[in-house]
């Protein structure tokens, strides 16, 4: 049964943050920091990126400000909510020296429940994919699982796509389809609110809501459709696995390798990339050592190294690994493509390599599904 859409006045948005905080959540929301939109601890509505827009192009991300009252009239920033669940760097366990050897203790992560405001549709899709990586296999990652505990997700459907966005073609946006507790559509005067779960309903019950008017619901619908239509980049939504692996000798790999710096930016901004490296940080007195992990990239020299042998010595191999994995072998591993159409790898690539363009060149696919 579909509940009637409700409306939250712009002036009442603070009540949502307060309700979450009162429920014991650590509230995380978008803010402008160092010229980009980032997800950080949020206490005040005033901290939201009101009036800010993002202009994204290959190798370019710029924010501009206007008097617009909207707080979510942008596409995305360099990071999805990934770092809050799968930390960029975190200790896993420590080994402590004893008289006859050592003992091992887990380092337990801070598990205060998180509430996110302003999650994007593509980020929700990416989150579902990371869940499959860390929770769906024979081994459950307890660090990731602990942070996802009792997490609350408040999505905001995108009203503005960036030039780098292509979520409409991957089927992941701009409307958030599933996986949220509450979803908002931002209008000038406030927010049309949808409930996605019982947890979301519990929060909604604490807010001063009114029934959304037909015009408001229509306006919300129109703007998300406009955001979809404004997207110019596409990626074929079909499974590209066989096409990619049939083209491992395509000359385009050499072409892209000549441009690629192998810096790994694309993998670090990607909301679905999960590679990480483990290492030891030993105390100076040698009495204790910390075993930690941090994000790794298939573009790094260490990623493919085994004793005396480098699996991927050339940039060509590394770019091919990234693209054939992301758009190809991901299907085998997790049942869908690893790309959610957020376009971050395009904007944050220092030389502006466009994943959609490379995929089209290599697979010969037009990107428009029949």
């Amino acid at each position, binding site marked *: 049964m579909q509940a009637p859409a409700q409306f939250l006045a712009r002036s009442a948005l603070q009540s949502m943050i307060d309700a979450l905080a009162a429920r014991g959540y650590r509230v995380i929301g978008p803010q402008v920091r160092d010229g980009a939109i980032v997800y950080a601890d949020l206490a005040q509505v005033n901290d939201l990126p009101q009036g800010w827009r993002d202009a994204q192009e290959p190798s370019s991300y710029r924010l501009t400000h206007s008097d617009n009252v909207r707080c979510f009239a942008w596409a995305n920033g360099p990071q999805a909510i990934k770092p809050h669940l799968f930390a960029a760097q975190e200790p*896993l*366990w420590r080994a402590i020296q004893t008289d006859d050897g050592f003992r*091992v203790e887990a380092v337990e992560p801070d598990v205060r429940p998180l509430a996110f405001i302003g999650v994007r549709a593509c980020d929700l899709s990416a989150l579902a994919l990371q869940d499959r990586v860390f*929770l769906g296999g024979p081994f459950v990652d307890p660090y990731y699982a*602990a942070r996802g505990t009792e997490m609350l997700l408040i999505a905001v459907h995108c009203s503005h796509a960036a030039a780098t966005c292509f979520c409409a073609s991957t089927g992941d946006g701009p409307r958030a389809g599933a996986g949220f507790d509450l979803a908002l559509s931002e209008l000038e005067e406030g927010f049309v609110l949808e409930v996605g779960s019982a947890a979301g309903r519990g929060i909604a019950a604490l807010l001063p809501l009114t029934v959304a008017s037909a015009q408001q619901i229509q306006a919300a619908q129109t703007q998300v459709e406009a955001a979809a239509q404004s997207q110019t980049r596409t990626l074929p939504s079909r499974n590209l696995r066989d096409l990619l692996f049939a083209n491992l000798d395509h000359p385009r790999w050499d072409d892209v390798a000549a441009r690629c710096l192998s810096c790994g930016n694309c993998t670090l901004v990607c909301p679905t990339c999960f590679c*990480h490296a483990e290492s030891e940080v030993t105390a100076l007195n040698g009495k204790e050592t910390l075993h930690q992990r941090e994000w790794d990239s298939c573009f790094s020299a*260490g990623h493919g190294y085994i004793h005396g042998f480098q699996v*991927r010595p050339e940039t060509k191999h590394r770019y091919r690994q990234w693209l054939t994995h992301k758009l190809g072998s991901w299907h085998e591993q997790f049942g869908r493509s690893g790309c959610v159409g957020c376009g971050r790898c395009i904007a944050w690539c220092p030389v502006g390599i466009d994943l959609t363009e490379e995929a089209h060149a290599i697979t010969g696919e037009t990107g428009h599904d029949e």
Partner: protein
Amino acid sequence: MSRAMRELILGRVRPGAAVTFFCLPKRNVTKEKGTPFAGPHYGGFPALLAKPGGCATRAIRCAATRSDSARRLPPARLRYSAARRGPNYVAVFTMHTNPYLPHVARIVERRQDAPTIFTLRLAFEDAAMQRQYRFQPGQFNMLYLYGVGEVAISIVSDPEEETMFDHTIRVVGRVTEGLAKLAPGDRVGIRGPYGRGWPLAAAVGKNVLIVTGGLGCAPVVSVIRYVMRRRADYGKLTIIQGVKHSADLIYRLQYEDWARAPDTTVLIAANASAGPWPWHVGPVTELITQAHVAPDSSVAMMCGPEGMMIAAAKILLQHGLGEDRIYFSTERNMHCALGHCGHCQFGGKFVCRNGPVFDYSEIKELLGIRGF
């Protein structure tokens, strides 16, 4: 939900605590609505863990309780047992089932096999863990050297030996160099066993062909010993070993020993030789024809440089051996061994989870292609 169960749950929830396991019927969980379990909910199920610090996972949605027996079960077993109870049961995993933690093991014995190769015989400090430890030949453990790091090493001992397990290690890097300096009584960390081992059950009654190249290949040594101990269960055993130069052959006495075993053939090839060399001179692949492979009743298991294995596989295919009868033990960079860290991917396969042993048909698409 019974009063006792509820108390168990309430009693164990404390801020900062991690929660162990459990599978509970979902209907019992939903009954908890409206009870004093305040706090955030997720996805229609009340969060039974009232305070921050609770740890029932969002994706798995379930109640949690403490269970010592559950703590000892591997996660896959827990999930399986929850599933077996019916569709309304689910399992929860937390810090107490942390697969990243190594367990301390003691070096019982150390043997120097060759100048750069040594064998450690290990036993878990926790006697119960040692008793419960089971593996298959071809599987591997992550060995942890205090303060240095972890490394993936295959297990070479017999799976029926319950008091300890062996790793034969070649000194090739930071961790193995350090492991080489340890002595009996020293401690290492162990996680495992991981991966899919050799198809030894499927090979029962068949001829076993071992092809290996380079310096002593531990993964196949485990197969040879396994078959030797169960000689009646298998047909002909043929061991083919290739080395670049005759001087590279280690375990020479071991090969001579194996050659004397019943129904066993040992064939060795060196690309170049010096001094007395009773075996073949030339590429190891030339020996495969001499091995008289019976395609219908043979299984080939190989370990060594990939180029050698690919060349050998091609000849075996020409001899009529099926693609699903030719097995490779593969090796890639490995950090977590849990399918999370991404390093060991070979196309869509995780070597740590889907391998390290693959049959030819599973990996032929990418075999020999630089960059995978």
